[in-house]
């Protein structure tokens, strides 16, 4: 087949400009289809990355045995951090400071200056040890919160459903009957922490009238030492604690969201399918109007396969141009857009996988969308096709 005489490459290119309106409309439609695919794949990738980025294999979470991995419902004694630090070997230490972070975690209604109704937000009571254990957390603006202050994650505004300016440094938030001043903003490498608000643990316990904790996060010297915390929790059954490595915890959450991800891929397939049908419709119309032209090419001596290749080339060129435009729009406007979700908020991720899938769908649209109408046009005898109006 490759040894046959093919139509010139630029013949297919020039054909696209012969009918500029039709070409532009088809290009627009294909761009939208590919952009939709990019957005859905970006949603899936963003969700996966958020959960993966949150899990550190060196960190072990210790929470209540009966809370069934629902950390918000977990309640463990306040003395647990000291007990763990004293009883377990392999806890990471730096200049005598143990990597043991006691935390109080809750979902609560939060009011800001510009919200008419309180939004559901995530609050974590922490000490200064939290950034040691949660190594991906970085304070990028402002200062660490003192009494009566909080710091907000980069996506906390998205979780609350308010604007970024509403959670700027110096603004106030109100929850659980207390008003807090925002003293800083932090990032966390795209992890789930970015949708949270962090307050001083002691203040939060006072406001909530609680002395217990939700969990203790312990940084170990190596992933292998995580088993020692598990061993301690199973020996001391009187404490009713459970130890899970942070990466295993968020891997389990990933599984929990697997149906959502599967649904996302189904949507991608449906969108791609609808794009193919739309492309088929367009190409049928385009080929019907060129029956005489295609018959003339056959009369000139070009084989049917060569003409078919040209038609596929035109459609694929158009689809790939649409993919390029969609990827540009995706990178400029979709990548990094915050999405509110049940477990917090995360950013849409337009990465190499998303672009690869989008371009693959575009190539498929071009090839599959052009083949049936092209094959149909090739079936007509040359003499009848030349006489066609």
């Amino acid at each position, binding site marked *: *087949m*490759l*040894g*046959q005489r093919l139509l010139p490459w630029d013949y297919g290119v020039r054909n696209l400009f012969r009918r500029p309106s039709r070409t532009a409309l088809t290009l627009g439609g294909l761009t939208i289809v590919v952009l939709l695919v990019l957005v859905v794949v970006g949603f899936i990738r963003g969700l996966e990355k958020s959960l993966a980025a949150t899990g550190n294999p060196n960190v072990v979470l210790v929470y209540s*045995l*009966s*809370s*069934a*991995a629902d950390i918000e419902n977990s309640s463990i004694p306040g003395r647990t951090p000291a007990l763990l630090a004293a009883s377990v070997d392999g806890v990471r230490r730096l200049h005598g400071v143990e990597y043991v972070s006691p935390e109080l975690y809750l979902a609560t209604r939060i009011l800001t200056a510009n919200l008419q109704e309180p939004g559901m937000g995530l609050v974590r009571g922490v000490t200064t040890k939290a950034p040691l254990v949660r190594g991906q957390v970085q304070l990028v603006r402002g200062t660490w919160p003192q009494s009566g202050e909080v710091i907000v994650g980069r996506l906390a505004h998205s979780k609350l459903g308010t604007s970024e300016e509403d959670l700027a440094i110096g603004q106030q938030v109100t929850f659980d009957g207390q008003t807090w001043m925002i003293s800083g903003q932090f990032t966390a490498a795209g992890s789930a922490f970015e949708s949270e608000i962090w307050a001083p643990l002691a203040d939060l316990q006072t406001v909530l009238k609680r002395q217990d904790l939700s969990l203790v996060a312990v940084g170990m010297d190596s992933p*292998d030492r*995580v*088993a*020692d915390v*598990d*061993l301690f929790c*199973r*020996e*001391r*059954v*009187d404490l*009713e604690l*459970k130890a899970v490595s942070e990466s295993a915890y968020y891997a389990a959450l990933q599984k929990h969201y697997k149906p959502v991800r599967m649904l996302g891929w189904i949507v991608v397939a449906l969108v791609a399918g609808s794009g193919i049908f739309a492309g088929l419709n367009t190409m049928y119309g385009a080929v019907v109007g060129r029956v005489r032209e295609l018959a003339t090419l056959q009369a000139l001596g070009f084989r049917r396969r060569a003409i078919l290749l040209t038609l596929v080339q035109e459609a694929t060129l158009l689809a790939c141009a649409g993919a390029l435009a969609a990827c540009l729009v995706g990178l400029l406007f979709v990548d990094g857009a915050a999405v509110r979700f049940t477990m917090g908020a995360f950013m849409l991720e337009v990465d190499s996988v998303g672009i690869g899938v989008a371009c693959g769908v575009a190539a498929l649209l071009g090839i599959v969308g052009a083949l049936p109408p092209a094959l149909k046009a090739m079936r007509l005898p040359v003499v009848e096709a030349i006489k066609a109006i």
Partner: protein
Amino acid sequence: MRTDLLALPLIVGLVMSTGCGASPASSSQPSSAAANIDASQFTLAEEPDGAVGVIAARESAENGAPLVLVGRVGGSAKPWIDGRAAFTLLDASMDVVADGEDSEEGELCMGDCCATERLNCTTLVKVVDEQGKLVPVDARELLGLKESDMVVVQGTAKKDESGNFVMIARGVFIRN
């Protein structure tokens, strides 16, 4: 032309088979720690006499006293401690039902909702060496154990005032 058509898939297949190449090294090789430890010193050739169940041992065993314990490996969604010769032992009289199913008397649900109920009929077994140190090899690898294996463990009881009961094992016998 026909030759070209046939050649193309052959070339593609050749490239793909070369790219896929040799299979990676098997991931089921024993760890280096296991290779340095003689597992036979922790395996009993015969079943020791006088075995008691986990529930009975919880009530009657004394701290530091020799003990022979019989039970089934399990009693937890994950009865193993990764990388350590330790596992959870369930009293042989208890059966396990699937997570979420209603459990009757003598049955245990493995979900976290029943975690505190399981504490009374399970115990942690730690296999230690002559120095009393926990063997740093996964029990599945060291002893060839599988979940639900019925085992008889010989060792010493460890109890404290809070009611925590742990079996310090020197030898394990697997019933067939």
